[in-house]
């Protein structure tokens, strides 16, 4: 059952990657990459369940906590065309 979930999520990720490749504007790519990061975070969490070992969930926590940092800095960059830091 969990294997089926993981497969579904990975196929979703592969479909989302199509938007990263073709996405006509940069924000499309950013949104798709953000979606990919969420999907793969969920996948990692399910992998921890498959391996039945809580240490794998630490990786998923790290992604859940940090993956939006990328998106924030990309968004700021895109908003002004440069980073006003």
């Amino acid at each position: 059952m969990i294997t089926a979930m993981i497969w579904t999520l990975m196929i979703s990720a592969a479909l989302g990657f199509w938007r990263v490749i073709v996405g006509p504007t940069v924000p499309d790519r950013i949104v798709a990459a953000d979606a990919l990061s969420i999907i793969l975070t969920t996948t990692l969490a399910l992998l921890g369940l498959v391996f039945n070992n809580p240490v794998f969930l630490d990786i998923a926590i790290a992604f859940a906590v940090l993956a939006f940092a990328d998106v924030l800095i990309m968004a700021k960059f895109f908003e002004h065309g440069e980073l006003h830091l």
Partner: protein
Amino acid sequence: MSTLLRESAAFVLMAGGAFFSLASVIGIIRFPDIYTRIHAGTKALTGGATLVLLGAALYAPSWQISAKLFLIAAFLMATNPIASHAISRACYRHGMKPVLAFIDEYGNSEEKRDRT
């Protein structure tokens, strides 16, 4: 009995979550412009991921794993809306117009606020 109930509930939650994830990715691919894609890629996806994680937490054999899965879900729900808000605002500020949109309420209010 309770095990069966728990597992079937977990299965329903996870299947719903996976369905939402898939649907939102299809939305990212099929929707016409960036704002609708953001709409698909964050709302539905956050909900889907949360559902999957809650289902997994129900299914998990030990309470440590369940606690960590709840934590992941909480963090995702806390961070992802910020990111999507930032990017949609960035798109709007950058000057990208939504297609098929006639009324720009946010833009009007934004304009007024910036003027004052």
